[in-house]
């Protein structure tokens, strides 16, 4: 490796986002309350500019920044586009409900900081940076979960915080142990060192490290916060919590599997496989009889982590893994946000029964919901189908065929609860009434996300070509 590369322009999307957050905080202090939407507009502008910058950076050769601690490679590029795009969608969902809220500015700022944390997670190539990114992604999210200051929101934030703080400490312990075992925190260095380090030490350190990553991803066994935080927080925040940090966390997980732990003497693939099976199975089983739609989507997102872990389990053993993971992440983000956008569009409808008769009152919204939910199942031609196809292919190619069979069985099981939600919507007579006020912007977002998830599925070829390519050295 050559000398330190400290060109801040390599981090342009991250810098834009953070700068906009800081600027927004300052501006928000003196803008009148009814003008605070300008901060939201600023955030949208920063995300948009960040996507453009990330797309331009993706055409450059792979590089690292700040002494190799920050990777600029296909994984980072995709995570940037998806995270910023996801944040953009969440911003669009929240601008309406937050209009002239006393804490409007604070919401946008927290959202941007949490999103910047997810970006850092995806790009970190050094354990210390990873730990810092974990904190940056978590702390604003705790505040967001409790943003409504009501009973469920407080409980959500508290539970989220306690689990997060505990697993954060565990993760720092893991970093320390791995530093002791490998005498460095940079991934390329660890790769050579861990291969010769004592196996027990590496195993303990890795397990502790993975605990933190799983917390951010919302996977079993660090999933306890997900249902309560998602149900307790407002719908746009719930959409954010189940999508954006997950992208950063899974990218980080993949990077860990592919670089520092690739040569370590660990049953890594089996460990990830077990986590994957646990996530998808427990998430699906718990989702079966949920009545609250946000809680149902919360368990659904736990089960999706299981599928997303398949390519991590075969990282380095199948050429298909990286594309599969990144494509699935993009498709999942779009589809999940679409489902939450429908929830946002019907603010009064919390339970599955509130969706009765939706076919008659809001056919277009229901169509979006059907596309998104069947998309989450993996029905062609939506994006998640192609993602699942790629993920399954990668796992079979990497010698984990049994895992794919489990995943397929789980997919069928998941159908049950998604259909439980869709089916009442077709009942002609439903208790229609007060709960049918719709939020216009959110409905438009829902249509857009549903359409985009089908388009992404159909244009998968072009996208997949971009996602390949080597990781940063």
């Amino acid at each position, binding site marked *: 490796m050559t000398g330190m590369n400290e060109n801040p322009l390599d981090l342009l999307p991250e810098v834009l986002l953070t700068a906009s957050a800081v600027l927004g905080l300052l501006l928000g202090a003196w803008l009148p309350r009814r003008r605070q939407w300008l901060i939201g507009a600023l955030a949208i502008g920063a995300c948009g500019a960040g996507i453009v910058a990330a797309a331009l950076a993706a055409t450059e050769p792979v590089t690292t920044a700040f002494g190799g601690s920050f990777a600029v490679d296909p994984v980072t590029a995709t995570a940037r586009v998806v995270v910023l795009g996801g944040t953009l969608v969440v911003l669009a969902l929240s601008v309406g409900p937050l209009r002239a809220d006393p804490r409007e500015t604070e919401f946008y700022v927290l959202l941007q900081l949490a999103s910047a944390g997810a970006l850092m997670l995806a790009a970190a190539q050094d354990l210390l940076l990873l730990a810092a990114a974990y904190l940056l992604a978590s702390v604003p999210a705790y505040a967001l979960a409790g943003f409504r200051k009501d009973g469920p929101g407080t409980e959500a934030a508290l539970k989220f915080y306690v689990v997060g703080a505990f697993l954060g400490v565990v993760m720092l312990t893991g970093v320390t142990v791995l530093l002791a075992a490998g005498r460095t925190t940079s991934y390329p260095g660890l790769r050579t060192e861990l291969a010769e380090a004592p196996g027990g030490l590496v195993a303990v350190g890795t397990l502790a490290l993975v605990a933190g990553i799983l917390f951010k991803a919302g996977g079993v066994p660090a999933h306890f916060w997900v249902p309560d935080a998602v149900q307790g927080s407002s719908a746009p925040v719930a959409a954010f919590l189940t999508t954006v940090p997950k992208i950063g966390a899974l990218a980080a997980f993949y990077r860990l599997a592919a670089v520092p732990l690739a040569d370590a003497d660990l049953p890594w693939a089996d460990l990830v496989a077990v986590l994957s099976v646990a996530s998808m199975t427990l998430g699906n089983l718990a989702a079966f009889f949920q009545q609250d739609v946000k809680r149902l989507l919360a368990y659904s997102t736990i089960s999706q982590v299981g599928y997303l872990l398949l390519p991590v389990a075969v990282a380095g053993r199948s050429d298909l893994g990286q594309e599969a993971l990144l494509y699935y992440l993009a498709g999942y983000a779009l589809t999940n946000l679409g489902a939450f956008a429908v929830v946002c569009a019907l603010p009064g409808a919390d339970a599955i029964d509130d969706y009765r008769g939706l*076919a008659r009152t809001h056919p277009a919204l229901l169509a979006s919901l059907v596309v998104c939910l069947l998309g989450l199942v993996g029905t062609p031609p939506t994006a998640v189908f192609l993602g699942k*196809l790629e993920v399954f292919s990668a796992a*079979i190619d990497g010698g984990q065929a049994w895992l794919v069979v489990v995943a397929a069985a789980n*997919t*069928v099981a998941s159908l049950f609860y998604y*259909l439980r939600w869709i089916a009442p919507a077709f009942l002609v007579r439903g208790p229609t009434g007060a709960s049918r006020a719709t939020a216009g912007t959110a409905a438009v977002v829902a249509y857009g996300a549903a359409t985009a998830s089908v388009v992404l599925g159909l244009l*998968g*070829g072009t996208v997949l070509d971009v996602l390949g390519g080597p990781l940063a050295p």
Partner: protein
Amino acid sequence: MLTAIVLLPTAMAALLLCVPRSAPRPLFLTVWATTTAAELVLTVIVWAGYRTDGGMQYETRARWIPSAGISYHVGVDGLSLPLLAVTCVLFLACALYAWRQTRRPREFAALFLFLQTTCLGLFVALDLILFFLFFDLSIVAMYFIIAGWGHRDAARSALKFFLYTFIGSLALLLGFIGLYLAADPHTFDIVELTDANPLAGRATYGALVLLAIAVGLAVKTPTVPFHTWLPPAHTDAPAAGSAILAGVLLKMGTYGFLRIAMPVLPAAWRDHAVVFVVVGVVSVLYGALVALAQTDFKRLVAYTSVNHMGYIVLAIGAAGVVGGDHEEARRLAVTGSVFQMVSHGLLTGALFLLSGVLYERGRTYEMSAYSGVAERAPVFAALTGVAAFASLGLPGFSGFIAEFQILTGSLGPQPVATGLAVLGILITAGLFLRALQQIFLGPLRLPATAPGADRPFPDIRLHESLAIVPLLALGVVLGIAPRFVLDVVEPASRTVLELLAR
């Protein structure tokens, strides 16, 4: 050309959904019927331009997702062309039959048009993922048809149908991925896979892939023991939905065997052909016996589908059994199985539409609720009689040609199994005669209330006969002059057997 045939119904469905709901009802139904008629005309044009010397024709191939080995590849040959034609005929019949549809006609027409796209698309798909795409979307469309327009316990039946067939489709997907990874370079293209024969010499891998694919297709076919979703789905679906489900969707399974399983996995198929023979015979006998025990007319027809599809599985199993000098017999069996798909589509479609007529008049399928209906509705009775006799395989109807070919072809390679299967015909004959006797003969007795009818049990109406009579007429034409279909099918079945012999 094929792309236009596949996409036209969905385009029309999208147009229909743009028309406001308040538009007059006949508008939707006319557009629907016109579209299906245009589809039939297009298919006839394709058939007219088809050279009977075999091989894939009207091929189109376009890049879709090259990095994942997926392409948009369609084409027709002697296996798919007859099914394409049957699909168009049945959808036209359903469009005519549904002329009095009053519940949300716009959505009903749009869903059926979309379903037509998925069915036609599946039969012309030459890429596994394209095949899977249409396979899955047909399940989705049918789910909404059953859940939205069915009667009695429709929501539950629809859910059962969806979950069951979706499990099958996922098994199928696993098998497809297995094929994809086995081929070098990785591809999902059926033609390339057929040429490459990627699993030659890898017995265990081949058996596993065949297992996954066969389970997926067997659920859809359905064969015993994967048939339990079928009776509730059929009984609770609207009549047009049942006709499509039995007439077209069931064929997707058996078509998949002939298009994918046999040519791509010849060695595995030959090794395990006996399994298919056994499953086929069990389906034939079990389907017939359970049908015999039914008191519900529509359920009875549903179970005879298990019986009829069992013959096809028996035939393709017998075709794969090695040993002996049965080249000619095997070809007869394969040809017969394709012919049976066509014949069953027409005749069962007609029977389900007729059971819909019965339900519309009497609000029950229970056969004991009726008696002596022939007196009140002679035309209806005559049509049902014709359909029942055709379905049990009386000479002069298409069903006879199909079953004759299948049984003659399978007798050489598998004498015992075929001997048992012949019993199925006997049972079917018995149960159909019993049903006819119970409903149509004897003193007149009708269910107590028939709400909405101006007089009790009117005879068949014009739109109903327009839908049903052509199906039966085609059954007779194919029974008397089957040559024009056989000319198309025979070269294709020869090709399948050549591929199987590799």
